[in-house]
């Protein structure tokens, strides 16, 4: 029977961008989450390549609500900091940002960071941009080893990047870098858009999948479970079959949730709660 553990459910607050940090953390805690993936973006965590706010204060706020920061995801696709720039100076500034983010990650009490390989452009040759991504992620993996964090590389939609928008690219890159500090993250929306399935991801990458962005989609969307078209129970069956016990990051981003993100969190949490085992039913 399809099952997950409560501790696997991991809140993400992108849909709280119109509200301050405290409101977001209250929402996550009220929904029932014990773990959060903190996204390093305004207005919930301020940082750039030269400066960051005090992570200790944020950590205390999270822990005071009975939760923990399980993962830190610094900005990596919408803003200027990206991991696969052709421009050398832009790449350098992005790496400064990423190294700073690793330090923040540790100080938040987390040891995993999620990122992607945006930064190339569509008018580039795929293989050239991909080779560059392999070099850049080799560099990122060595920073990660020094910092003592694991970096999880997710795939993205083709509207966001030409490289690493498929399982094949992510798996080839992770294998080519071959570092214990670089794993893969399964993002169900990018997976759905690419026409892939969770089974294909686990068959190809197995234990190298260290994190999931596990949201509903049509296949586009990043939706609350139940608002999209994905077969939740069958997807959880696959997680069970391959023994995945990592986190299930609830990356909800659609504009429809921005006015009332707490409601979205509660509804989403309840959709997933049906599969929770190993404790008395609430």
């Amino acid at each position, binding site marked *: 029977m399809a099952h997950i553990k409560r501790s696997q459910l991991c809140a993400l607050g992108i849909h709280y961008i119109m509200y301050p940090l405290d409101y977001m953390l209250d929402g996550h805690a009220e929904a029932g989450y014990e773990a959060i993936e903190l996204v390093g973006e305004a207005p919930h965590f301020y940082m750039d390549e030269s400066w960051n706010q005090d992570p200790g204060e944020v950590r205390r706020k999270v822990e005071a609500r009975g939760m923990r920061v399980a993962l830190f995801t610094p900005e990596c696709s919408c803003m200027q900091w990206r991991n696969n720039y052709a421009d050398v100076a832009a790449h350098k500034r992005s790496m400064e940002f990423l190294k700073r983010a690793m330090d923040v990650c540790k100080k938040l009490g987390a040891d995993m960071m999620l990122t992607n390989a945006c930064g190339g*452009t569509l008018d580039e040759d795929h293989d050239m941009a991909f080779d560059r991504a392999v070099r850049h992620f080799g560099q990122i993996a060595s920073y990660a080893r020094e910092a003592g964090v694991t970096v999880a590389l997710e795939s993205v939609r*083709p509207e966001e990047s030409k490289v690493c928008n498929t399982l094949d690219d992510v798996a080839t890159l992770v294998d080519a870098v071959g570092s214990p500090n670089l794993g893969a993250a399964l993002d169900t929306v990018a997976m759905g858009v690419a026409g892939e399935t969770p089974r294909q991801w686990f068959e190809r990458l197995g234990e190298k999948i260290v994190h999931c962005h596990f949201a509903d989609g049509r296949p586009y969307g990043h939706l609350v479970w139940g608002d999209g078209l994905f077969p939740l129970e069958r997807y959880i069956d696959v997680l069970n079959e391959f023994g995945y016990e990592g986190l299930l990051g609830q990356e909800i981003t659609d504009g429809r949730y921005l006015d009332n993100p707490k409601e979205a969190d509660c509804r989403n949490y309840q959709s997933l709660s049906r599969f929770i085992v190993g404790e008395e039913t609430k």
Partner: protein
Amino acid sequence: MSAPTIRRDQVDGMNIHWSQWSLDAFLDCQERLGFTGIELWGAMPHLWLDCLGYYDAKTIRHKIESRGLTANVFCPENVISPYQVNPQEDLYASRCRDYFTNAIRCAAELGCTYLSINSGWGYWNENREEAWKRSRDMLRSLAEVAEQEGIILTLETLRPQESQLVVTLEDEKRMLEEVGHPNLKAMVDTVAMSVSGETLEQWFESLGSDIRNMHFVDCNPYGHLVWGDGNRNLGDWVATLEKYGYSGFLGQEITDERYLTNPAAADFRNFHNLERYFEDEL
């Protein structure tokens, strides 16, 4: 009576939907299609702008002008960026001010006349008047910087999903009056205007020649669309522009995700729909 027209050099091509392509690809396309002006959206991968500085205005200006184009307007990213006109937390406010100050300087270096700006948004769970004051003070202090740099800020309205501050024509009028600085002028965004149920006539009746710049795109009423993809009447609007003697810019702020993979095709259709109204095409 002759049919209403617009001038070719009023129409500014924009690069938001080129966000997955290089700056060169965008500029080559604008030149080929027959644009003479652009409103440059200041974000990567085209231009790096943050609270610390910007790169590299000189090179970018050369790229623009060597193609026979002029950067008329600069549009620093300030909806999805970490920086907004309405920062609340003290530690962040100075960084936002630095960001917009850099944007104004960058606009001057690029040779622009105007810089598009908005009110920021404030948190959804805070008092509107408190947030309003922050925006007013920030806009006044930025208008002073703009005066020193010889740039005019043009304030566009936002959709109610984006902000609780300057959203309607009435808000726009109030903010312009309260800031009361000659370097802050009015700007129409046809999408925000349509979403608020206002007409172009109302804007001209209310603000007249203070309107210096526009984001002039099709919509239904949402969506920043290519002319022809929405349901606004281009001919009627061109007649209104002429009736009120509008000679400012018409920025083509196309943002819908459907255009990201083939922005050149979008610009081609858009430009040819506008071209029918050019006075030099008769």
